[in-house]
C-alpha cells in the first residue's frame, strides 16, 4: 500500500520532466523504483528517500537543460541569427532607458544621459523597428520555405518552444517603443 503511494508520488513528480524523455523512460523509471522499493537493501526508508530525491532533482535539471539545448538547435539558424541581430539593435536604447530609470531611483546621484532628440528617434524608434522587420522577415521566409517543402517541423518547433515567449516579448517591446 505504502509502496503504491510512493510510486504514485514518483509518477506525479516525473510529469516535470521534458515530455519526450518522459514518454520514453517513465515506465522504466517507475519499474526500476518499484524494484528498489521491493528488495529493501537500503539502511532505512529515509536514506532511500534522500537518494531518490537527490537523484530526481539532479536528473530533472539535466534533462531540462538537454531539452532546452535540443529545442534551440531545432530552431532554424536564420531565425536565431535575426533575433540576435534584433537584440543587438535594441541594446543601445535598452541601456539608456534602464540607466535613466536607475538614475531616477537613486535621485540623480549618477548623471542622467541626455540624448539629442534625433538620437532618441534613432535609438527608440528606428533601430527597434528595424529589428522587428528583420525578425518578421525571417519568420515569413522560414514559413514560405516550409510551405514549399511541406515540412513545418522547423517553424512549428521554433514557434511553440520557449523562444515564442522571447519573440513575443521582443515584439511587445518594439511596439511599446514605437507607439
Amino acid at each position, binding site marked *: 500500500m505504502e509502496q503504491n503511494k510512493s510510486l504514485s508520488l514518483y509518477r506525479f513528480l516525473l510529469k516535470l520532466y521534458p515530455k519526450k524523455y518522459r514518454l520514453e523512460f517513465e515506465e522504466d*523509471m517507475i519499474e*526500476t523504483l518499484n524494484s528498489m522499493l521491493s528488495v529493501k537493501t537500503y539502511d532505512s526508508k529515509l536514506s532511500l528517500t534522500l*537518494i*531518490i530525491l537527490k*537523484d530526481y532533482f*539532479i*536528473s*530533472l535539471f539535466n534533462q531540462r537543460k538537454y531539452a532546452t539545448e535540443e529545442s534551440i538547435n531545432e530552431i532554424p539558424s536564420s531565425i536565431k541569427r535575426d533575433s540576435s541581430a534584433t537584440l543587438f539593435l535594441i541594446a543601445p536604447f535598452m541601456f539608456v532607458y534602464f540607466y535613466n530609470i536607475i538614475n531616477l531611483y537613486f535621485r540623480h546621484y549618477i548623471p542622467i544621459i541626455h540624448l539629442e532628440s534625433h538620437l532618441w528617434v534613432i535609438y527608440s524608434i528606428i533601430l527597434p523597428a528595424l529589428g522587428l522587420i528583420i525578425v518578421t522577415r525571417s519568420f515569413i521566409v522560414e514559413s514560405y520555405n516550409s510551405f514549399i517543402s511541406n515540412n513545418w517541423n522547423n517553424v512549428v518547433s521554433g514557434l511553440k518552444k520557449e523562444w515564442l515567449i522571447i519573440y513575443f516579448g521582443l515584439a511587445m517591446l518594439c511596439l511599446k517603443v514605437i507607439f
Partner: protein
Amino acid sequence: MKQPRELLPQVSFSILFALSLQPRHGYEIMKQVEEDSDGKIKLGPGALYGSIKQLRDGGLIEELKSSSVNRRRYYKLSPKGWYRLNVELDYYKTTVKLSRSRHAPEMSI
C-alpha cells in the same frame, strides 16, 4: 574507428562495463554497477536512464527487441560501444602501468 577525444563520465563507463558481461535491463544494470564499484556508485532511476539515453543516442548501446512476456527493455553493447569500452580500459591500464613504473611508495597498486 575514430579515437575519442575525451574520457567517458564515470557513470557511463560503469554502465558500459556492466553491459560487457551480458545484456541487462535498467535495474540489473543498477545492481551490477553498485556491485562492480563495491557500493561506491549508487545510481537512482534518473541518473541511470539519463546516462542510458546519452549512451544510446551516441550509438554505444542498443536496445534488444523485447519479448512479449517481459515488457522490460534490455540493453546490450553495440560494436561502437565495445570499441569505446576497450579504449577506456586501455587508458586505465596505461595509467596503472605508469603509476607502477614511478615506484611511488605511497601507491599500493
